[in-house]
């Protein structure tokens, strides 16, 4: 059992690193310009010139999925940051203050959790014009509750611990107690939540963009590529493979990473 657990950490970390490197490379190099259209080369099967074939405008699919990873990482990172910040505020306030503040904030998080993720995202994106920013904001908001819960329970658990009491006795202020004393002890569970939220963010962004309500052109997105690919499924079945596989691998990588970190922590305690 023990070997397998470190195995998911290693596997997850390697998937994520490979994807990250691909994303970095795409910033400076793609085999073809990702937006270059070539009507004579439209819907070509994979070849030496176009490793993953071309799309309905004759654009190189490999170059486009490479650039698409930038969007996936951007959406993941920004929405996790929003979720973490919001969750930190709500979680520490609830855990630290207790009483009615805690009750109120936790009921609000329960209510947010009662919305299935995609439904809340759809509600939020229906308010204004779809865009990259709006997608990240919507996904960020819906990841606040899980961070808030983890951080609140961590704060509750450590608030009354002897070492925190001792620090308070020595005259430590609230900021010191939260950031210096408590935060390091809940870091690993927060990192796990961050990894799992990242994969949820990638999945929801892909779904929203597939529906045409997420990232808009010219920003590249795997989800939107899948939408385009579906219209040419019979003619160009390879078109759907690369973006779909990349979403799957990204989600898989971050899920394994999150699980691996949690198992590591469980083993230590």
């Amino acid at each position, binding site marked *: 059992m023990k070997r397998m657990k470190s195995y998911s950490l290693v596997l997850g970390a390697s998937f994520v690193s490979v994807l990250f490197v691909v994303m970095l490379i795409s910033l400076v190099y793609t085999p073809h310009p990702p937006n270059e259209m070539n009507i004579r080369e439209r819907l070509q099967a994979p070849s030496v010139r176009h490793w993953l074939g071309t799309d309905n405008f004759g654009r190189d699919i490999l170059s486009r999925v490479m650039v698409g990873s930038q969007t996936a990482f951007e959406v993941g990172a920004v929405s996790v940051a929003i979720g973490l910040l919001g969750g930190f505020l709500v979680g520490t306030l609830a855990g630290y203050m207790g009483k009615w503040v805690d009750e109120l904030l936790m009921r609000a998080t329960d*209510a947010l959790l009662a919305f*299935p993720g995609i439904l809340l995202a759809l*509600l*939020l994106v229906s308010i204004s014009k779809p865009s990259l920013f709006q997608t990240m904001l919507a996904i960020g908001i819906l990841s606040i509750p899980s961070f808030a819960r983890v951080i609140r329970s961590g704060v509750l658990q450590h608030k009354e611990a002897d070492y925190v009491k001792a620090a308070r006795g020595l005259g430590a202020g609230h900021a010191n107690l939260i950031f210096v004393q408590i935060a390091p002890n809940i870091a690993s569970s927060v990192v796990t939540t961050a990894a799992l939220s990242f994969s949820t963010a990638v999945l929801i962004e*892909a779904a929203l963009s597939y529906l045409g309500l997420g990232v808009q052109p010219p920003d590249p997105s795997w989800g939107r590529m*899948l939408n385009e690919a579906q219209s040419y499924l019979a003619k160009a079945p390879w078109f*759907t493979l690369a973006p779909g596989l990349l979403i799957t691998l990204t989600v898989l990588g971050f899920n394994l990473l999150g699980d691996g970190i949690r198992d590591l922590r469980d083993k230590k305690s």
Partner: protein
Amino acid sequence: MNYYARRLLTLLLTVLFVLLLTFAAFRIIPGNPALVILGTEATDAQIALLEEKLGTDRPLAEQFADWLVAAFRLDFGESLRFSEPVTHLIAGRLPVTVSLAVMSLVLTIAVGIPLGIIASRARGKAADMLVTIGTQLGLAVPSFWMGIMLILAFGLTLKWFAVSTFTPWSENPLLAVKSLVLPSAALAVPQIAIVVRYLRTSMLEQLGLDYVRTARSKGLRESAVLYKHVLKNALLPVITIIGINFGELLAGSLVIEQVFTLPGIGSLLITAIGNRDYPLVQGLVVLIAFTVIAINFVVDLSYRWLDPKIRLQ
């Protein structure tokens, strides 16, 4: 406070919060909602008319009070696009979505539980690894892409299923089931992965308990130990998980309907968002959220009722 009273209070608060959120979402739109819907070329008279219809010309508190009363009576006004009561429109689309969700629930149970039992019989490093990789993959594949791949494999290549045509139940029940097979399979994949994972863990946990040793030492056949004792106890947490995930299934069907062009509430919601048909969007979101909340509530209570250990506490 009594557990049930507390749970009921939470339920009410959650419902209130959902209503507040859906109300607020369309009142924080920058600018006048009527103007956003009609566009900048609308005349003042048109805007005034729509404002009256939406009720946005009245004070906020009054609007919210009206919204609460209307929502509890499931009256969400009239759709701006279809000029029909929102409740009507939703009711017309509901059968497709409900049958899709129920069919994938049936698939989840029919495939997930046997697979979970098989997975729990296989122990050791290699089996652990195989189950982990399989279930993780099932969870990672976006179900809408799974749907596209199923269309590619069974619709276009093998031609077992007609693609993108839905036959209503009233016309031909057999064809209706057939047109829901691929979409419900796509929806069920991540749910099956969850069931396999939970059932396996839960069965392995039960197998380590004393009563299993007792049952074996009194000479019970291994199959009787497994199916009469272990499985019965191991299924409880799995049932809860399936229940809780029914909400996810419902939400997943919103996207899957679009992949298979099924005329359910998912495609209605996407159209409504595209048309800026705010009353319809509000009605749909509230209704779906209420359903999910109600299901979770029932699952929570039945779990306590099913497990005497929790019931007596």
